């Protein structure tokens, strides 16, 4: 039992670190554009596909392939901003949400199509091998790297939001007319944040991908599905706090993983059940979110 809980903790933190990375980007975009970005994980899957193609099919050097994947993720995010978000800037939030969902679905469709010859893919790891196996659960170097990158990114984002540019990002979202009137180019700010989100997405993709097989929609609905847990984590963070998003992702990962305990073996969908109960509990106890101080400034 203790072993199982230990394993759940390890696996929860490892899967959770991908959720956290997604949650960070979701919070970032939400703070910048007031939209829940459904395409976030597809920036990652697309980046992963690109890296895979570069490394495995074109025979590029691994590092170059990863950079290429990240670049594709960023480009996709920028294109989304220019082609969908910008033209829809005056529309309601769910229209924007549907726009990003459309981007995600289109990306998945295209991945499906271009990939249909070989639907099951594997990307080699950055560093092969297992760093440790606490409680019988292998922790790969890849996962250790993912976790470290997550922490670095989260710290970076906290500082970003404290910087003048970070302030401008929030200002642009809260009162875009006024932002223009103080000289902030809403357009540039928006591109900047989407670019960062694309980078985060790409990172999640190229870091999470090698641990599993991947197929179209890998990070959205596939084996590495992190969109919905990422969303939960982001909401738990009140859609604003960066450290909250990280903690939220890890927590969601852990709670979900408790469903894997053998006492729940007979319970169908124990993970979803636990998450649902957990969220209900959270909402009843702390309606304003878990990781938010009321009216926190940053």
């Amino acid at each position, binding site marked *: 039992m203790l072993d199982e809980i230990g394993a759940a903790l390890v696996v929860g933190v490892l899967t959770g670190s991908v959720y956290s990375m997604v949650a960070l980007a979701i919070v970032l975009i939400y703070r910048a554009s007031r939209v829940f970005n459904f395409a976030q994980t597809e920036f990652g899957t697309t980046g992963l596909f690109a890296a895979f193609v570069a490394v495995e099919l074109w025979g590029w050097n691994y590092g170059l392939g990863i950079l290429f994947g990240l670049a594709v993720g960023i480009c996709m995010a920028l294109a989304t901003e220019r082609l969908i978000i910008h033209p829809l800037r005056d529309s309601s939030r769910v229209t924007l949400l549907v726009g990003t969902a459309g981007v995600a679905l289109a990306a998945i469709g295209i991945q499906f*199509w271009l990939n249909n010859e070989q639907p099951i893919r594997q990307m080699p790891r950055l560093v092969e091998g297992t760093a440790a196996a606490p409680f019988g659960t292998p922790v790969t170097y890849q996962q250790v790297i993912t976790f470290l990158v997550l922490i670095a990114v989260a710290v970076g984002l906290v500082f970003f939001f404290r910087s003048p540019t970070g302030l401008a990002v929030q200002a642009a979202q809260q009162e875009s007319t006024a932002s223009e009137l103080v000289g902030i*180019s809403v357009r540039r700010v928006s591109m900047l944040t989407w670019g960062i989100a694309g980078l985060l997405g790409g990172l999640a993709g190229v870091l999470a991908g090698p641990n599993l097989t991947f197929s179209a929609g890998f990070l959205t609905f596939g084996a590495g599905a992190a969109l919905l847990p990422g969303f939960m984590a982001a909401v738990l963070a009140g859609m604003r706090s960066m450290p909250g998003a990280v903690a939220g992702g890890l927590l969601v990962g852990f709670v979900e993983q408790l469903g894997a305990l053998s006492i729940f073996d007979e319970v169908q969908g124990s993970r*979803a059940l636990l998450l649902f109960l957990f969220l209900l509990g959270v909402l009843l106890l702390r309606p304003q979110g878990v990781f938010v101080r009321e009216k926190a400034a940053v």
Partner: protein
Amino acid sequence: MTILQRKSRKRARHAKADEPVTETSVLSTEDTESRESGTAPDATKELPRVTESNGEFRPSAGGWIARLLTWAVLLWLLLAVPGNVLSPFDFGVSDINLAIAATIFAIIGLSLNVLIGYTGQLSLGHQAFVGIGAFASAYVVTDLGLSFWIAVPVAAGIGALQAALLGAVSLRVTGLYFALVTLAYGLFAEQSLFSFAEITGGDGGKPAERPAGFADDHLFYYLCFGFLVLVLWLDWRLTRSKAGRALQALRENPKVAASYGVDVKRYTLLAFVVSGTFAGIAGSLMAHHQQIIVPGIFSFQLALVFVVMTVVGGLRNRIGVVIGSAFFASLGEGGGAGDGGGFLERTIGLPAEFTGIVIGPILLLVVITLLPGGIGQLIAPVKNWMLGKRFDRHAGKLKEVEVSDVRA
């Protein structure tokens, strides 16, 4: 309770004496008692009569005939063609199935429109609402052996109940929290609830017989169409009555709504219940349409399709939502049948099976960026014209905001 209080207030007012207060009376508060001697005539009595607006557009005789003809063609398309009556087309099984799916999706779209459009709350778990309606209906018919006509109200009631419960929980919070709760609920239903064979009959699904007299696809279409008309009626009356206006005020400015006396919680719950009822009805019809309803289809992707079709149809635009939903139903049902001539396969190598999943979302993006108001925006001029107004290309268009690069 509140109504009673209000009535008593009115009585109190009518009990006042008759002398009007004079404008010049300048009294300090200490003397208020002495001023308790005037009256104000009841507002409604004194208000001037207003003549109804003048100079309204009236179509010419020719205009009326054109409109009537258009109506006739529309009715023929909706009523005669699917039944292969007076129709040069041969409506085969896949066509009629598509038509049925379209009506059912339209009801789902309208259900979601109540939530997203009227209350501004996003539901990411609507597949669960529909699914539970479907299994409730199948259960009533198959396990309890009762009639379809009992199953539909039961499904609607269960839909209403779950929406009310979920709504009550999430009323404590607003905005994305409701989306989150519905999302988690949907996943829970999909992975946990729908895994109970007692409810769903197992992965192979639960049979759901069609009602006597409607076993035939064509007849079943008319049944579904009837329900769609009913839902449209309810939805129309909702928006045209006090509840709809209260919801609009709530959505735009809850403080103002409350200051008008709108009970925020009560009306939000009301909208949830209405939405849940519609979803339950749709679920029931879906079960009897499929005849065996499998739990596997009620996945998050379906919930996403529901949201997408509603928004693409056009929030708060009934006809747009119906058209958008029908369109997405055909994308889903038709699967790969989109690329008839194999045109895309020859040109860009896109196989027919993938047209739905590749072209569909791209089409969606094009529609939504060109028409942020959805399909409803596109058809608004036609609709207005058919309702006897002047044809105005700009009707339904969102207000152009000539502001450069600024989010208003």
